[in-house]
């Protein structure tokens, strides 16, 4: 049979494809629906948090920080309750990471504050002596992209039925409503911050990347 296949490229290719495609179908499909179900209490991200998540992705925070707490005592002691599948139901993409150059951030919102993040992003050494994380000064001058975040939220609502605007869930509304809500959500964060540039910009109605990413990090619980 193999000799025959080696003389018939078409059937050879079909054979190879069947053999390699098989595993994907068997491993990914059976539990697909199960894995997509959210845990009770899990909510989709607000537009501001989503904008912050985009900043997190833009600077590849996930290259050094995981968001996956494994079920070991040493991990739950350090980071909190181990991860449940349903907690990730609204994470598109998932941000588990594959390397912990820095600590896990799955529940960082439980034990860090806006103030801490502000200092840390500007100068990590000021709060963590010996840290090898670079400072992210540009997050204090770049403006967060609320428009794209809104577009994404609206897309997942329409295409994947993510329950925005439903009872007990974050409100999305129109784009104008959403920007107003994002500003309202950003206000307490800006109030907790010290950086004058960020405050001035906010007074003009501009949300800097740092504000959005702090909103996102604070939401991780």
């Amino acid at each position, binding site marked *: 049979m193999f000799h025959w296949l080696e003389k018939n490229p078409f059937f050879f290719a079909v054979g190879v494809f069947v053999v*390699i495609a098989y595993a994907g179908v068997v491993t990914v499909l059976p539990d697909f629906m199960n894995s997509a179900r959210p845990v009770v209490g899990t909510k989709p991200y607000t537009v501001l948090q989503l904008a912050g998540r985009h900043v997190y992705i833009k600077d590849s925070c996930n290259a050094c920080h995981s968001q996956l707490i494994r079920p070991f005592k040493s991990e739950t002691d350090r980071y909190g309750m181990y991860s449940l599948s349903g907690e990730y139901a609204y994470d598109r993409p998932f941000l588990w990471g594959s390397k912990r150059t820095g600590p896990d951030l799955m529940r960082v919102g439980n034990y860090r504050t806006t103030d801490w993040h502000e200092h840390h992003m500007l100068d990590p050494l000021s709060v963590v002596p010996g840290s090898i994380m670079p400072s992210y000064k540009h997050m204090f001058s770049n403006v967060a992209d609320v428009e794209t975040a809104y577009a994404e939220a609206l897309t997942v609502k329409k295409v994947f039925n993510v329950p925005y605007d439903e009872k007990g869930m974050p409100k999305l509304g129109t784009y104008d409503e959403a920007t107003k809500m994002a500003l309202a959500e950003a206000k307490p964060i800006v109030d907790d911050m010290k950086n004058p540039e960020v405050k001035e910009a906010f007074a003009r109605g501009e949300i800097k990347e740092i504000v959005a990413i702090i909103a996102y990090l604070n939401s991780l619980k």
Partner: protein
Amino acid sequence: MQSSNMINYDYSVAKCFAIATIVFGIVGMAIGVLIAFQMAYPELNYLAGEYSTFGRLRPLHTDAVIFGFILSGVWSTWYYIGQRVLKVSMAESPFLMFMGKLHFWLYIVGVAVVVVTLFMGITTSKEYAEFEWPIDIVIVLIWVIWGMGIFGLIGIRREKTLYISIWYFIATFLGVAMLYLFNNMAVPTYFVAGLGKWYHSVSMYAGTNDAMVQWWYGHNAVAFVFTVPIIAMVYYFLPKESGQPVFSYKLSLLSFWGLMFVYLWAGGHHLLYSTVPDWVQTMGSIFSVVLILPSWGSAINMLLTMKGEWGQLKSNPLIKFMILASTFYMFSTIEGPIQAIKSVNALAHFTDWIPGHVHDGTLGWVGFMIIASLLHMAPRMFKREIYSKKLLEAQFWIQTTGIVLYFSSMWIAGITQGMMWRAADQYGNLAYSFIDTVNVLHPYYTIRGVGGLLYLVGFFMFSYNFYKTMTASKAIEEEPQSASPMAA
């Protein structure tokens, strides 16, 4: 074999890709060395503002070496091997010639766009699949063009039986196509919402499912770029360079079909102790161990091809590169399964042992094999002898030292890190804060940086040697039958 001397093979596309291999190799490895040193000396993050932070450069490094250096190497060898084992010249078909050139130039455009967008931070965050949808479309196009090239050449072949290398090239083409398409399924947000950035998209899968698809892709993209086409190279170039027939046809059959079937199951080992279903994790673990068989099958087949001819290791540096590459392949494919055992993975996952494992495969196996392949091709493509054997010998030892420093320091770093994360004092409390586990790694990060630097230095020596072979070396009249001619 006689007729091969009468066909005038056209290597113009192979040459273009060979040069691309060298250029992208230098770029990708240089960024790698920089980010390695950033982990030891964080001040290096500020060379160019936000564009030189570790986070921006890391995807650039991985993508530049995988899709720049390695893929160019794969394509360069394909456009060389393909014609020779199918006994047909690309010059016989203006269409295939045109497709080959289009393949190259479209690829160069794609790479340029990727570099710019990754610097800007435009990424989907998925490892080795960071590109947004417009780039994905270009990549699919490049892939389809390559596929037409493969099957076009096969369609007009004179040698009816496909040689082993061709099996592996076909598998590379099909495997990557399937994986890439499914993993990059995304909805462009602008087309649904009508606002925001036009190139932004959102993944079709969420959370655990997204992770499962990503590592089905991530692990097997490694298989079908780092392993499968590199085996295609070793099956062609080692017998050619040594003048020895492949040890066993049966073993190559077993290894090929075994590898195809087993590899795709192993992705689950990236997700051990995560929230994916337990049975997927167990399958991933078991199949990873089974994977030793087909992997070692190929490697042993290569080593035994040298049976009775081990003296060539002394006389021919290219054989040395290829044999060490096969040995690193064995090493890497025993280390991987060990890391995929659940209890070992509990310690190793998230640590530096993982990049350590990746690099003994990529630097030792993939890098050495591509270097040897290009140098085997050079005298035949440019009709000149290899410029300097001495330089090649020196390069071999410098790079080998570099690899050893790299993986040994990362072993120690990874295991240290893993042990410290879980260490508890006599009351059962965590013994170390996270930053303790970072600071202890400084010496190992430095050693790793030095190891990477040595490898890069060796790569520069290779580039110089290749350039000189291309331009200034002594011309040869007849194509060498086996061992490549080289000046002392």
